[in-house]
């Protein structure tokens, strides 16, 4: 399992579950980068089957629809989809 880490301003543990092929996921990755927030992302489609299953259990806990992108902030807030305003609001300095 290889969570990718992007360094930046610490806003707690910010984890993005994404698909490498999905443009909405890419927009979310870019937004997090632009916001300069320290975060991790996982391209779930690139994981080996057993790792993927494990990660999807976590995604399902936050987002039962298991859709992408799923963003989990500090283990207490989840934003599903590229909701730019909501993400900016949740991660504002």
């Amino acid at each position, binding site marked *: 399992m290889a969570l990718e880490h992007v360094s930046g301003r610490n806003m707690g543990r910010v984890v993005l579950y994404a*698909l490498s092929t*999905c*443009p909405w*996921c*890419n927009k979310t990755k870019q937004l997090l980068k632009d916001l300069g927030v320290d975060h991790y992302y996982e391209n779930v489609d690139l994981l080996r089957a057993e790792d993927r299953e494990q990660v999807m259990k976590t995604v399902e806990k936050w987002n039962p629809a*298991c859709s992408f992108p799923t963003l989990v902030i500090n283990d207490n807030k989840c934003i599903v989809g590229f909701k730019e305003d909501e993400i900016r609001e949740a991660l504002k300095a």
Partner: protein
Amino acid sequence: MSDKVAISQDEINRQYERLKRQAEAGGYYLNPDAKFTMELVKGLLVNERRYGYQACPCRLAAGDRDEDMDIICPCYYRDADVSQYGACY
């Protein structure tokens, strides 16, 4: 699984034109944001190489055609998404 699937711009353009014709013949239109749509088209082609069929780039495929039948583009959820959001992706 590797993400190093090389898809040429030429392939993307050809597939884009093909999808545009198919969509319009069925009364649909591709997203006018061509850059975004090209990225989607590339995702479809990556999935075709990876799985052997064009699974939706925004949904997680199981890698089994029968299991993924519902998410092969145009997927079963397209009309519901178009009705609800005015677009699929």
